[in-house]
């Protein structure tokens, strides 16, 4: 306990440095700014803004990225409530009751409850991350290559199970992502693999190029197909920003339950935040005395998923910081950013760079605080941003992405690669393939291959090593069971209805 306090104190001393607070504030601000734009989800926002953090010192960059992440998420909720366009899957449920509240002129209450609920969830989850960080790190030190490989398999299977639509197609995306990650020089021998003798590919395909293409460009091309009316903003006036006492009483229980549910689900690899918000909404509806109010502007229906969503977003840092394994696409982007700063995510971070580890945890709490501080007064600004017509918005996003990609390596080829992935992403969506598992696999690919090769070498070519070592066997068993359950058609039908709701 004293350790925990001492560590948190160290963290706050880092995060509270004036320039780090400034980075955090700036991150939350631009994150919200971009996240508010309709049709741009959290992943796209983080991918787009990644390049602007590269010039900062490592701690500052990661703190700013964490701020961007929370900002993007909160921005997404704002869009859901005001415009009924969910930026991404996690805010779909917020649309249900949030937008109904907005139509009844209670947008202000919905927005502030969403912010307060997120803040409360953020506080709890920050403590949880700090408390679980140390024990999980010592667990990670017991892991050998076989265990790491098995854990990553489990993580990818989670991503498959939680993806919308066909399980088989999600597996296909995973395998495609792994394959794409192998383009470039071989880890051990340096031999160029699948590079087609193109010099620019010998370093591999850049992660940001893939992410920007699949999420940024593809998203825009797709949005262009929609008619103007479907993107229209409701011109509801926002009055009465503060929630009433009754609102607070009504939503406090929902916030607490959402926080607990979200914290648990967020730790699971594979996209906990999405499941968390759905689960929290369904749970609230189930236990509510007046379930008929849900879908017609029940404040609990905003509070619970928002709290769950934010708690899960926060606890999803746990597997990243302790095991070095990103549990979802946003965390995968974080790995990309850390790698560019020369930090290898994993248990060593906490031991070797405690100020980075604890500084980041403390900055999560600060980031949440910033959101409450900047968002409540700035709601009017975000609303006016929503009135910018899409026909002017999308070229701006395109050139911003182009410059962002170019700035990473001063390489025009990177821009071309992103353009190619933009077309690929558009095609994938048209054929009901989901890009998120692909990106996760793309990031995990090199780590997975390295551990697979190492494990096989240590076991002298005996593939059963993954089943004879107890931890690894357990992880593989869980992964197999999950996959089988997801493959059962009855369950998969049920899964679809959960996401359709």
């Amino acid at each position, binding site marked *: 306990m004293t350790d925990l306090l001492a560590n948190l104190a160290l963290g706050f001393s880092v995060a509270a440095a004036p320039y780090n607070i400034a980075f955090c504030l700036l991150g939350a601000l631009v994150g919200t700014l971009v996240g508010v734009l309709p049709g741009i989800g959290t992943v796209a926002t983080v991918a787009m803004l990644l390049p602007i953090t590269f*010039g900062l010192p490592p701690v500052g960059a990661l703190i700013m990225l964490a701020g961007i992440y929370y900002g993007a998420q909160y921005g997404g909720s704002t869009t859901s409530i005001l415009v009924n366009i969910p930026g991404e899957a996690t805010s779909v449920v917020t649309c249900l009751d949030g937008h109904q509240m907005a139509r009844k002129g209670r947008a202000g209450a919905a927005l502030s409850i969403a912010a307060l609920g997120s803040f409360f969830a953020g506080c709890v989850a920050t403590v949880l991350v700090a408390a679980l960080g140390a024990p999980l790190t010592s667990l990670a030190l017991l892991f050998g290559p076989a265990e790491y490989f098995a854990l990553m398999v489990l993580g990818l299977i989670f991503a498959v199970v939680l993806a919308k639509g066909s399980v088989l197609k999600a597996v*296909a995306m995973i395998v*495609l992502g792994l394959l794409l990650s192998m383009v470039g020089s071989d880890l051990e021998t340096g031999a160029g693999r699948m590079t087609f003798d193109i010099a620019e590919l010998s370093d591999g395909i850049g992660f940001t190029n893939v992410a920007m293409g699949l999420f940024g460009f593809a998203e825009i091309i797709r949005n262009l197909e929609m008619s103007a009316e479907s993107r229209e903003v409701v011109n509801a006036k926002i009055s009465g920003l503060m929630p009433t006492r009754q609102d607070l009483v009504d939503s406090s229980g929902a916030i607490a339950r959402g926080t607990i549910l979200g914290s648990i689900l967020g730790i699971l690899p594979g996209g906990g935040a999405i499941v968390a918000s759905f689960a929290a909404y369904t749970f609230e509806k189930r236990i509510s005395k007046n379930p008929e109010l849900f879908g017609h502007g029940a404040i609990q229906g905003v509070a619970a998923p928002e709290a769950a969503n934010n708690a899960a977003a926060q606890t999803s840092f746990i597997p990243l910081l302790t095991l070095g394994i990103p549990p979802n696409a946003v965390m995968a982007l974080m790995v990309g950013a850390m790698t560019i700063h020369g930090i290898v995510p994993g248990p060593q971070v906490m031991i070797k760079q405690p100020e980075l580890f604890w500084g980041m945890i403390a900055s999560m709490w600060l980031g949440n605080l910033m959101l409450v501080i900047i968002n409540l007064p700035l709601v009017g600004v975000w609303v006016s941003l929503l009135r910018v017509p899409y*026909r002017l918005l999308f070229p701006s996003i*395109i050139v911003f992405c*182009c410059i962002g990609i170019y700035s990473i390596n001063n390489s025009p080829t990177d821009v071309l690669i992103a353009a190619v992935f933009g077309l690929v992403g558009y095609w994938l969506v048209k*054929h*009901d393939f989901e890009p998120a598992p692909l990106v996760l696999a793309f990031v995990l690919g090199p780590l997975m291959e390295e551990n697979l090769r190492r494990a096989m070498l240590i076991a002298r070519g005996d593939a059963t090593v993954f089943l004879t070592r107890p931890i690894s066997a357990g992880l593989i068993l869980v992964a197999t069971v999950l996959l089988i359950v997801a493959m059962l058609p009855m369950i998969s039908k049920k899964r679809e209805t959960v996401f359709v709701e």
Partner: protein
Amino acid sequence: MAEGAKSSTGGGFQLKIRGPRDFFGGLALVAVAAIALWASSNLPGQQGFAFGPGTAPRIFAGLLMAIGVVVAASGLFVKGPPLERFALRGPAYVLVGILVFAATIRGIRFELASIPIHVPAFGMVASTFMAFMISIFGSTEFRWVESLIAAVAMTAFCVVLFVYLLGLPFQLWPMF
């Protein structure tokens, strides 16, 4: 899935594409896997206990091919939604906009059918402006005046942000 296959093959089996999204999606996966197999065919494989550089790509390409076959097959047996129409205007203008940016930001030299082509370095201001003005045609709701104003504003914003605030070493003006 098995149920769907049975019910659709109820009376006289006919091979037709029932789920075109799955069918063509699966075929594309097979094609990608085939390219990957071909591209990694020259890499040395397993040597003793050690994986060679070619082992893992071949394993995963093989796996992808198998999955692609199953996905395509499921497109034959399971009824699925029809193919969505691919828009041409949006992707085309956006793509050209991005390509122009990539070609002009630093300038490139290449040979197309042994004719040397040289695109000079236009620098960030011109490239950003051009990319904006080309990609904006991707929307059907285009209007000249507001587009030009927005293009100038966005170019100015990017220059201030990337060059002055973030201090990135970009060449701003054309250099021929």
